[in-house]
């Protein structure tokens, strides 16, 4: 019995240590990326290419999911608020939940599994097929030429995607509640406008998605760059990217929300 407890405790300790180690490694890697980011900005076409792969190619999934999430929010909110006789407030509910939480978080989760995994797989495969070594031998630093552009492509794409997700979600809510359930359109918008604050809701939501973008892009590039150069290595790294970025997003969301609620000042 004691042995089993001891073993269990040791496992917890080991896992904790590994997680902390991994976070540390990602942070160090982020520092490396930043140090090698000069090329990305001197030759912005490199980043544009990555914005295409990370951002443009995630557009459809983000727009469609945003629309659906907004419609569901509208339906559910209408259902509940109607019993209190304040169904016009449904706009407030849709807008605030999208801006503060669902927009940044859901779009980041989708982004991690759509674009983050692709970034990891691509870098991992380049490593496994010695393309990164070949680049190094050509006196081109892969951190500057391959990793940093993908990182910045992700960081730039996610806030834009989150804004689109939120906007489409509000339109979805509008569609369901105003067009289909006949909530008054004027009340829908005016109550929303009165309740939503630019700095506390919109800007904070954008800050969240920027932080998530940094986290997902750093994790995805890190996992790819550090992947064992084999088929299993790369597939394992891809899975890890999705799992650890999702956890990172949710944990960071908790931290940021708590911080923002207390106020920055």
């Amino acid at each position, binding site marked *: 019995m004691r042995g089993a407890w001891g073993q269990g405790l040791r496992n917890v300790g080991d896992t904790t240590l590994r997680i902390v180690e991994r976070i540390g490694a990602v942070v160090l890697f982020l520092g490396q990326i930043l140090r090698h980011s000069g090329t990305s900005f001197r030759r912005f076409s490199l980043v*544009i290419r990555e914005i*295409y792969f990370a951002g*443009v190619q995630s557009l459809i999934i983000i727009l469609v999911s945003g629309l659906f999430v907004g419609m569901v929010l509208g339906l559910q909110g209408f259902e509940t608020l109607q019993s209190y006789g304040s169904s016009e407030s449904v706009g407030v509910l849709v807008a605030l939940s999208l801006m503060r939480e669902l927009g940044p978080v859901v779009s980041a989760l989708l982004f991690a599994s759509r674009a983050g995994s692709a970034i990891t797989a691509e870098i991992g495969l380049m490593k496994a097929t010695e393309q990164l070594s070949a680049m190094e031998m050509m006196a081109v630093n892969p951190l500057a030429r391959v990793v940093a552009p993908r990182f910045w492509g992700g960081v730039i*794409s996610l806030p*834009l995607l989150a804004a*689109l997700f939120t*906007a489409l979600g509000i339109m979805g809510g509008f569609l369901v509640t105003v067009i289909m359930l006949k909530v008054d359109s004027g009340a829908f918008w005016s109550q929303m406008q009165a309740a*939503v*604050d*630019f700095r506390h809701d919109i800007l904070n939501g954008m800050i969240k998605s920027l932080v998530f973008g940094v986290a997902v892009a750093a994790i995805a590039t890190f996992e790819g760059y550090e992947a064992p150069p084999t088929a299993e290595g790369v597939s394992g790294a891809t899975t890890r990217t999705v799992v650890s970025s999702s956890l990172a997003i949710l944990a960071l969301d908790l931290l940021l929300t708590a911080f923002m609620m207390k106020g920055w000042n």
Partner: protein
Amino acid sequence: MNRATLNLWVGFFVLLGFVAFLMLAFKVGNLSLDGSGGTYEVVAHFDNIGQLKERAPVRSAGVLVGRVHSVRFDTLHYNAEVQMALDSQYHFPVDSSASVLTSGILGEQYVGLDAGGDDKMLKNGDEIKLTQGAMVLERLIGQFLFNKAQDGGADKTSTDKGAP
């Protein structure tokens, strides 16, 4: 993929993202208020603020004109000190009055401003002297019963001045 099409797509994407952001800022967030125009702060003391919280709206004639910036307990006067940030495009006479009101029956509480008649306008850091605190249901009922008992219902109560 050819470089020009790629650039086109990315340009389209970035533009779309910015349009979404602007839509959120102006259509949903009503940005003109505490974003660009700037604000000025006034203070008011209430004997009771009920459920009034930071960032609650400040309205005049039903129009949003500012937000509550901070709420704290004034240890000198034993009442609530409320800081409000008013949009600088709106000006109010110095003898305006502020009251804590409720939107709907169960709705959120907000500060209502009623303009006075003075020529001088409130400016940053000024205090609104005339205030009316929040209604507390128990007191209201108590007062109502008291009045009722006093004169058999001949006169209306004078306390529900601020109710919309």
